[in-house]
């Protein structure tokens, strides 16, 4: 019994739910569509019950505070305080309130956008050092990158319009052709992974416990 309940029933759930989603796409049966719509709503409700990411974060930083990890524990204490503050204020003010939007505009947006944007400096300072036409392959890559950057820099198309034309030609031919081949491969690979998962051949997600 335990093998059935511990492993096989979950695999059957994955198969059945997966099949409904697939059949809803391929068939016009109203019954399947109604079941699929319920499954989608359930999935959203289930998603809103799972807070493992935040719990792991609280455990990680909580442990550092308990151990007073040198040079780190006060940052961890601050992180825990911020998590609780943003959660409580979000519920108190309401996540769609103007106060909460103010907190987003003046803390999250500057932090999030600047952290990603600062890669611009890495792009400039770092890439310059290593972008060398060491062999034919990299030389082709560099030539293509160079022409695209010139096409993207309004200065050059403003002077010679064919810079924009060359840039667009590279995208309309090399990028469409090569990325379509890559895209087909990634797509078929996704189908293979999907079939393996729905038919219980890919059970990594079940998290096998040793000695089971």
């Amino acid at each position, binding site marked *: 019994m335990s093998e059935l309940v511990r492993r096989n029933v979950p695999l059957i759930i994955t198969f059945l739910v997966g099949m409904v989603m697939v059949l809803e*796409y391929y068939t016009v049966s109203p019954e399947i569509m109604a079941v699929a*719509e319920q499954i*989608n*709503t359930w*999935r*959203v409700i289930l*998603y*809103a019950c799972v807070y493992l990411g935040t719990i792991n974060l609280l455990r990680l930083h909580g442990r550092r505070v308990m151990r007073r990890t040198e040079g780190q524990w006060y940052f961890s204490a601050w992180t825990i305080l911020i998590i609780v503050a943003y959660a409580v204020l*979000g519920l108190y003010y309401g*996540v*769609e309130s103007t106060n*909460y*939007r103010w907190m*987003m*505009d003046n803390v*999250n*947006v*500057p*932090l*999030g*956008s600047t*952290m*990603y*944007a600062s890669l*611009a*400096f890495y*792009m*400039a*300072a770092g*890439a*310059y*050092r290593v*972008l*060398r*036409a060491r062999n034919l392959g990299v030389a082709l890559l*560099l030539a293509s990158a*160079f022409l695209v*950057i*010139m096409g*993207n*820099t*309004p*200065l050059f*198309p*403003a002077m010679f*319009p064919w810079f*924009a034309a060359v840039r*667009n030609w590279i*995208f*309309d031919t090399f*990028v*469409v052709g090569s*990325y*379509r081949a*890559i*895209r087909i491969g990634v797509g078929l690979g996704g189908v293979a992974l999907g079939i393996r998962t729905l038919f219980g051949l890919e059970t990594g997600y079940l998290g096998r416990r040793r000695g089971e």
Partner: protein
Amino acid sequence: MSSIFEKLQDIPRGLIFGLVIIAMAYPILNPIGLPITVGQTSKDAFNAVDETEDGSFVVFHVQYGAGGKPTLQPAAIAVSHHLFQKDVKVIYFVDNPVDLANTYEIFDKLDPAKYGKSYGEDYVVLSLTGPFLTQAAIVLGNLIETVPKDSEENNLVDLPMFEGYTETEDIGLVFQLTTSGDVSEGWVYQAVSRYNIRLVGGWLSMMTSSMIPYYQAGQILGFIDGSKGAADYEVLANHPGDAVMITDILSLTQLIYLALIVVGNIGYFGAKSLGEGKS
């Protein structure tokens, strides 16, 4: 002699950072004002939005968060200007508070009343959560039954714009702005492939390569290619804004970037040829 080539390959980082910062700050203080050559993909995006059926609904997905805001918020504003000039009802939807703040900032900058548009009658904002493909399936196929309220706690069925709303058939266009590849691909699977709805996309320009096969195959009608596409759309919708300013600045920073690559390679090949000469 070889020391010059070595130096060319090893310009100190601080100097490069200084150059980049100056190249970004200078054009803001005194703009160069270069003409924008509008690309075909931006024209296709503009025309596709323009040809959306009157009286139909447009699903506008704001999903660029904080990281994509500097690039894509100007595009969201320009497209909203365009949509608010048309007789369409716009459903904005988000799945986090940062994008909610971005959406309301669009309305602050846009002033819908100027176009005679009001909340609940011509546009609405929905808050959702869950995996993206599931959100898309709900918004496109099963909205009223699943999402009882909008972001301002109004019942959807009480809003005038949803009177006689019959889900999928009423949606004339999906317009999406995202920094996530899974979302931009996901819209092709759901909007185009599953529900057969017209799709126009907008994303960071680093995503264009992996998405352009869908555009060339006609699955995506047109797209906004990062800040360059946003500037194009601002020009097409004749509402020049931050994107036009950014492309102005791009000229200088990318010029420096190109110069650095050339200098680096001159140093590399110079040192290499000397190196061979010596041995």
